[in-house]
């Protein structure tokens, strides 16, 4: 247990710059979203936006993107936000293979530590980093709304904001688990991270394609992004059980695979 905590603490300390930077970026991003929404709300920009919005976009977003609430919460499904969070998860998930590649693992595993400790350490770091990043986004949403929301604007419901944050956190955790699982078969971090990154991009596109193109819809269910339907939630739907189950399942299965492979493989 002491070893596990020491390893997790070491990993988090090494990432503190990245985590603080990511958190600051999310705070700034959410500030930008609230300020922009406030500006549109005060200048009637949302009415013009609604008129100009193509039909497929209206259907996709339940018209919520063209409201103060929808615009503010769009931050949760914005590709940049998802890109950064998934990249963070992949970076954490591939840490064990990086330690094998650099031979840091020789120093660590020459000591009386179970191999599972390295995997559990990674899961702890992933959880802490995800909670910190998404928690910051959540807190920033509430704070900026409290400080910057224009009088009379219809504000998003707290349960919707929390649902989005939880679903986003589950998505990030799932990607961290997938990265950990895939990396356990690899000898090099660059290879594992590239494969995961490509997979993330491909499944992100697949999910979007499934939204617009019925033929692709059944296939898009394999994409983890399919289980984060932010626009449905912005429209008022709360966290769906199926989304929670699938994302948690992806995370759990990947983590178990990683644990089994790391227990068996050469380091």
């Amino acid at each position: 247990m002491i070893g596990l905590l020491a390893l997790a603490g070491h990993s988090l300390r090494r990432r503190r710059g990245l985590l603080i930077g990511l958190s600051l970026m999310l705070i700034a991003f959410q500030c930008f979203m609230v300020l922009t929404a406030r500006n549109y709300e005060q200048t009637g920009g949302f009415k013009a936006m609604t008129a100009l919005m193509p039909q497929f976009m209206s259907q996709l977003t339940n018209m919520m993107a063209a409201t103060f609430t929808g615009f503010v919460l769009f931050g949760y499904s914005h590709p940049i936000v998802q890109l950064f969070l998934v990249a963070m998860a992949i970076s954490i998930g591939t840490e064990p293979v990086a330690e094998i590649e650099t031979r840091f693992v020789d120093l660590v595993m020459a000591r009386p530590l179970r191999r599972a400790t390295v995997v559990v350490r990674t899961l702890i770091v992933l959880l802490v980093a995800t909670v910190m990043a998404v928690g910051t986004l959540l807190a920033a949403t509430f704070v900026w709304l409290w400080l910057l929301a224009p009088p009379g604007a219809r504000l998003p419901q707290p349960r919707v904001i929390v649902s989005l944050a939880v679903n986003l956190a589950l998505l990030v955790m799932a990607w961290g688990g997938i990265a950990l699982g895939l990396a356990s078969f690899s000898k090099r971090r660059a290879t594992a991270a590239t494969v995961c990154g490509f997979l993330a991009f491909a499944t992100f596109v697949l999910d979007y394609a499934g939204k617009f193109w019925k033929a692709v819809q059944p296939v898009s269910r394999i994409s983890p992004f399919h289980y984060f339907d932010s626009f449905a939630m912005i429209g008022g739907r709360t966290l769906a059980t199926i989304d929670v189950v699938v994302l948690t399942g992806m995370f759990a299965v990947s983590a178990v695979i990683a644990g089994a492979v790391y227990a068996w493989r050469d380091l």
Partner: protein
Amino acid sequence: MTNAGLAIALRDLAKSYGAVHAVRGVTFDVAQGEIFGFLGLNGAGKTTTIRMLLDLLRPSRGSAAVFGIDCHRDSLKARALVGYMPGELGLYTDMTGQELLDLLAHLSGTRADVGYRLTLVDALELARADLKRTLREYSTGMKRKLGLIQALQADPPLLILDEPTEGLDPLVQQALYEILFELRRRGRTIFMSSHVLSEVERLCDRIGMIRSGEMVLLSTVEKARRLGGRIVRVQFSTAVGVVALPPGMTLVSHAADRWQIRVEREIGALLPLLAALPVRDLEIAEPALEDVLRGFYREEQS
């Protein structure tokens, strides 16, 4: 030999990567309290064997045990008894030396004995202030010193050192030798791989040589040295022709007035032969371990 009193026992230990056989059924023991030199050229299988001892690599067959504890089945207990310095140190360069030593002490499950650590720091001539610097500011030699300190700081009963003097200057090498002698005096076992033959000759009680994954020599230093045979150098006062030598003797080189003979048995049979020749001077050189080991190396390269 039973496992009692053995620090290391390898039995038919092998590791293959597909068709490549990195280690081919290695069997040997290291007794408690001895310094054992593990020799071989690059790629001979030294590091692979060491990494199997630490359960970092899983053997294709055979077994390894430290102090009678199976290195794979009871890996945690086995590793708790070992201090390891890898040949290739993978370090996070954003950590300070102190942070690295503290982290690794935590992972060993021991509270770091700061006094002993600082004794090692001083003995290996690493300035205490250097421990506060990040590892990216460390030279290769400083990193190697830190690698030694992390292996030694828990004062484990078995030390596995993969090329411990690589990158160290002669003064620090000397300091390390003294530390290792002191550890042996206190009953610690040291298993070290090395390329430096003079170092092995000076430090080790026994040596093992691995060549292409197979043990080709396992002996005390003294016995290994004798394998080389003594060299007899004869200087003649006038030119002499080559004559047949008694069995067990080989003419290594010769000129008109000089012979160099390798004598692998008693030297007595040579004396009547020399007595009949115009000998001006005679020198008998004790065999050097380096010469023996170089012979094995040459065989591998050829």
